[in-house]
């Protein structure tokens, strides 16, 4: 909303500079986004001139050499406009004046004649849009009069950023009312307080009729008729105001409808009464698929929820949004039917959004205007049409469906006001603020009051809290004390889950990984690129039905896509290795779990979440895991590097980890394992499938993805118990076990631990050997055994006995000791 400063000051002038007014409005009422300058930067050097003579330029067909009285002197001015003529009163810029746009006017020689100034057009002054010739001012202004006294040639305009609740500030008078409430400077009487005199022949009902078939969507429809209308250009002051407010002047009747809308927020529409067959107006729902060409020349198709304003034969406009071409006011119009209606805001918003068509009218109607504004609009517009178009107003007003809501009153309790604001506001002060906003206020008891809401705030102010806002903002939110809530019993902190999530992220960082944040929405071809087969549950993504781009359609079911994208991005930009991780959610097609905590996707609230959103840690390495160093040979990441990172993560969380050989479509089939935490399947670890690596232009890579909730649930971190390992020393022994190649190391270790029983505290695999000494198809695993008893020092016999038991256990899996 653009508010020309001089226009607003006509209603309320606190005597402040425009920047001060902008600041006050922003701090107390509505945000002024910026102050725009329309027209010349300064009115200096612009005067009214009288053209004394206009002669053909000796050297140029299209130029005239004029003698112009500018008050203090007679100047020779060369003018290129075809319409310049002796006797005209015209706007003149003198040498030194700075024109709109910033160019300073000098004395210039034009085809041999020195021009001592410039006669200006509306466009050059930015007070209208007529560029065809110079602007001719009405009589009355004497030559030499500062032009700014006649025209707003240097206008400051407040550009408001309005919130949807303040439809009242979509009119200049409404903004002036706010300025009055803030400063106390007097507010001019309402412009609608006086009506036009109706002296036309007959009365409106003789010429027109209105039938509203949808009163639920059209709470009021008023119409007045005018005869003897002379269509022509609007006077300069009106054009200047429209231009400053951002509207293009068209003709007097249309300009008046726009002007009244800009003043009051109420849109109006003028019909050529002679182009309305039988003077009939019908307001009805559109038929499904019904079409009409709007004023902008576009054919529109409607549905049943669209409300149309029709003549007897066809639609002539979309209610509250845009008129049609059929009954437009034109230069030939002599009789006008002026429509000022009220529409259902929700319906207008729906239709304008369905059609993708927003207009000055629809942005106002969609905020729900009060039906009372309609008659106010009629009164102001009637006076202007009579005054500026030489028209006669026919007696009477058609007023259909007039459902005027009754005013409502709200109580404001002093105690509640003080408690919500956190500061005491005197009742007298509160009353003053509300009365300036045109609430009718009655004191109620000692501390309370009752306020009747004015028409322009009817839908916006409905509860006590709304009154608190009005009083609070005019008291000044910026004047509130800065206090903290008094609740001393509240205890802040992270939950164990939240703290362990941070620990997991820190662990990944400390292992050398860089955290990424990637899109939750993925491209629809991601499952194919990951080679996920039909039936893989990860193809069943939660999808938006109105995606913004084809790249972001479905919620990710794994973190791997984002990691691959980020790896490719960096490798394409000269990184020779990447070690990335993401801490984020996957979005699965399942009901949200009822328990398991936030990391599992169990969130507070009565309704379970519509999807399952487990929090995960994903990791991907490409190139060497170890950082590049001048004396270290770079070795590309493999399965054991990825597993090492995963083990380190689990170790920092104090959670047990178990891996089972498995396959994943996007991973190397021989180098992949499923992660099990406490027996629960919790993710994958492995090397990228070469085809997937190639799809992302990667030389290879390895990584893992693990659900955080089971890791955190299994975490012993913070719950460790002291264990005595110093009183009775451990006995350390190395053991070499020879087994068949296909026996997994974990099975060997399990057999050793089984044989070692409770005296064997740990068995750590530290070497793997293959070669002639152990024979073809066999391998030797070296383990370091740690024997310990909690209550005594072990003897050689104790250990020897266990060793024998270990031997027997190993025999069970075809293994033997290499002694």
């Amino acid at each position: 909303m653009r508010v020309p400063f001089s226009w607003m000051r006509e209603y309320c002038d606190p005597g402040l500079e425009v920047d001060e007014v902008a600041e006050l409005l922003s701090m107390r009422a509505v945000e002024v986004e910026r102050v725009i300058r329309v027209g010349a930067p300064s009115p200096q050097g612009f005067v009214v001139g009288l053209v004394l003579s206009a002669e053909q330029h000796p050297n140029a067909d299209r130029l005239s050499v004029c003698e112009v009285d500018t008050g203090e002197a007679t100047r020779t001015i060369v003018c290129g406009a075809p319409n310049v003529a002796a006797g005209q009163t015209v706007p003149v810029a003198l040498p030194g004046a700075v024109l709109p746009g910033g160019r300073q006017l000098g004395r210039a020689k034009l085809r041999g004649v020195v021009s001592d100034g410039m006669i200006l057009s509306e466009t050059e002054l930015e007070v209208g849009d007529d560029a065809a010739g110079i602007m001719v001012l009405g009589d009355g202004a004497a030559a030499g009069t500062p032009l700014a006294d006649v025209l707003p040639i240097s206008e400051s305009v407040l550009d408001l950023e309005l919130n949807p609740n303040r439809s009242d500030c979509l009119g200049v008078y409404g903004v002036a009312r706010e300025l009055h409430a803030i400063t106390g400077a007097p507010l001019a009487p309402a412009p609608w307080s006086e009506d036009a005199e109706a002296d036309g022949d007959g009365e409106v009902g003789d010429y027109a009729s209105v039938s509203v078939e949808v009163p639920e969507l059209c709470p009021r429809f008023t119409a007045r008729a005018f005869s003897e209308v002379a269509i022509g250009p609007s006077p300069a002051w009106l054009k200047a105001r429209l231009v400053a407010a951002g509207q293009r002047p068209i003709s007097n009747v249309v300009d008046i409808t726009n002007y009244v809308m800009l003043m009051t927020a109420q849109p109006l529409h003028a019909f050529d009464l002679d182009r309305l067959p039988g003077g009939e107006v019908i307001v009805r729902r559109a038929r499904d698929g019904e079409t009409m060409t709007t004023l902008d020349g576009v054919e529109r198709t409607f549905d049943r929820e669209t409300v149309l304003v029709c003549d007897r034969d066809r639609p002539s406009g979309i209610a509250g949004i845009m008129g049609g071409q059929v009954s437009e006011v034109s230069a030939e119009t002599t009789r006008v039917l002026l429509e000022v209606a009220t529409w259902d805001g929700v319906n207008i918003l729906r239709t304008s959004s369905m059609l993708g068509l927003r207009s000055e009218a629809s942005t106002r109607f969609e905020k729900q205007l009060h039906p009372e504004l309609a008659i106010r609009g009629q009164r102001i517009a009637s006076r202007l049409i009579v005054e500026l178009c030489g028209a006669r107003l026919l007696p009477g007003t058609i007023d259909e469906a007039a459902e005027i809501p009754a005013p409502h009153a709200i109580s404001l309790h002093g105690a509640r006001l003080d408690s919500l604001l956190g500061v005491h506001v005197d009742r007298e002060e509160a009353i003053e603020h509300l009365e300036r906003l045109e609430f009718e206020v009655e004191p109620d008891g000692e501390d309370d009051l009752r306020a009747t809401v004015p028409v322009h705030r009817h839908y916006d102010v409905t509860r006590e809290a709304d009154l608190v806002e009005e009083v609070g903002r005019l008291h000044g939110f910026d004047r509130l004390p800065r206090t903290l809530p008094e609740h001393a019993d509240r205890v802040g902190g992270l939950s164990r889950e939240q703290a362990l999530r941070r620990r997991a992220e820190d662990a990944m960082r400390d292992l050398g990984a860089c955290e990424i944040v990637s899109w939750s929405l993925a491209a629809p071809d991601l499952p194919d690129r990951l080679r996920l087969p039909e039936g893989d549950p990860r193809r069943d993504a939660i999808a938006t039905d109105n995606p913004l781009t084809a790249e972001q359609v479905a919620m990710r079911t794994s973190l791997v896509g984002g990691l691959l994208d980020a790896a490719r991005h960096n490798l394409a930009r000269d990184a020779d290795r990447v070690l990335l991780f993401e801490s984020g959610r996957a979005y699965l097609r399942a009901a949200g779990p009822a328990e398991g905590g936030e990391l599992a996707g169990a969130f507070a609230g009565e309704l379970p979440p519509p999807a399952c959103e487990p929090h995960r840690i994903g990791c991907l390495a490409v190139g060497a895991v170890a950082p590049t160093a001048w004396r270290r040979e770079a070795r590309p990441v493999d399965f054991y590097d990825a597993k090492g990172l995963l083990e380190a993560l689990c170790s920092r969380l104090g959670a047990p980890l178990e891996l089972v050989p498995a396959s994943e479509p996007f991973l190397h089939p021989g180098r992949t394992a499923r992660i099990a935490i406490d027996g629960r399947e919790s993710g994958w670890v492995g090397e990228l499938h070469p085809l997937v690596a190639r799809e992302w232009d990667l030389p290879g890579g390895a990584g893992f993805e693990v659900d955080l909730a089971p890791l955190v649930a299994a975490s012993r971190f913070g719950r460790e118990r002291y264990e005595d390992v110093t009183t009775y020393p451990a006995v350390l022994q190395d053991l070499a076990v020879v087994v068949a190649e296909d026996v997994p190391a974990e099975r060997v270790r399990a057999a050793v631990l089984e044989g070692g029983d409770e005296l064997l505290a740990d068995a750590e695999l530290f070497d793997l050997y293959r070669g002639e000494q152990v024979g073809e198809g066999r391998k030797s695993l070296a383990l370091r055994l740690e024997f310990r008893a909690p209550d005594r020092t072990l003897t050689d016999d104790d250990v020897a006995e266990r060793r024998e038991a270990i031997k027997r256990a190993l025999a069970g899996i075809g293994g033997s000791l290499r002694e």
Partner: protein
Amino acid sequence: MLDRIEELKAEAEAAIAAAPGAGELEELRVAYLGRKSELTSILRGIGDLDPTERGPVGAAANAVRQALEGALTARRSELEAAELERSLLDDVIDVTLPGTPPVATGHLHLLTRTRREIEDVFVGLGYRVMEGPDVEHDYYNFTALNHPPGHPARMVQDSFYVDPKSLAEGIRVPAWAVARDPAAPGREAEEAAGPDALLPPGPRDVLLRTHTSPMQIRAMESQPPPIFIVVPGTAYRRDTIDATHSPMFHQVEGLAVGDGVSLADLAGTLQEAARALFGPDRETRLKPDFFPFTEPSVQVDVSCMVCGGSGRVDGGERDPVCKGTGWIEILGAGMVDPNVFGFVERSGYDPQTVQGFAFGMGIERIAMLKHGVPDLRMYYENDLRFLGQF
């Protein structure tokens, strides 16, 4: 005889101290303590002495022998240490070559760091942290946050709606929580089934949450007042990505409800937070604003951390960060709207008596202001040259 022993001692000690190397030391040992040395002969000839002299001479000779052995050992260590020092001086490396990193230097994402920083500020002020789902019911995202039907923010162009066919088959929503178009087919039958009937979700019932505010409702449903929480999370809007907009972004929501919790408390709390995040000299100001779920609503500005609030940077130029105003908008806030309490009244929130405030801040924006990040897209590009700076 005793005099001769003392003479020998002095002579030998001088020679040992002056010995330049291990070889010379060995020669001196042979000369003074060897089998053919004078001291050895003296000890060997003690038996030939007068019995009264035997004791004193023997003792003196043995003492000198021990002293000389000690002196030899000491001198040997001295010479060895000097030799080691000499050899170490030849073993010189270039200490300016880079060290060998044990692991690469990892980084948390700037958004994670900033989220934690905000969380920690409020944890310090006595708040707990809660999280909620990204895929959310319209009921929590709009209805219970007092976005009446037809509200502009509900319009399709702003929100990503979830295709109900892509949800799990068994998902049902109670009739009181669906957001049906009154003209939708089958609506009458649904209404007849009563508010608690469980319905399959329609095309406008589930969406990607457009803000973290839905968690206000979920949190209040789960516990009576007082409640002091912050909710970090991801949100989604149908905004084309550019330097200041993104279809996915991150917020921290705040909710403080309890006896007497006031707008002045909001002002004080957010001033503390602004100072913790942007420095102790920051000032804040509140301006009127509008959000459907708060009343009164305010915008909170912080004095510009670049120009210090003057609006001018070095040389008198207009500060581009605050556009010369000296103030920067950091968040929206307000007193929880009584209509919102109305939706959780059965959990102990009486709209007539309960009061509190709520706020929401953008993590991206806070990090941009703190670290001078010029373009929102950098957060999601995951370029290591960006990530490695923080």
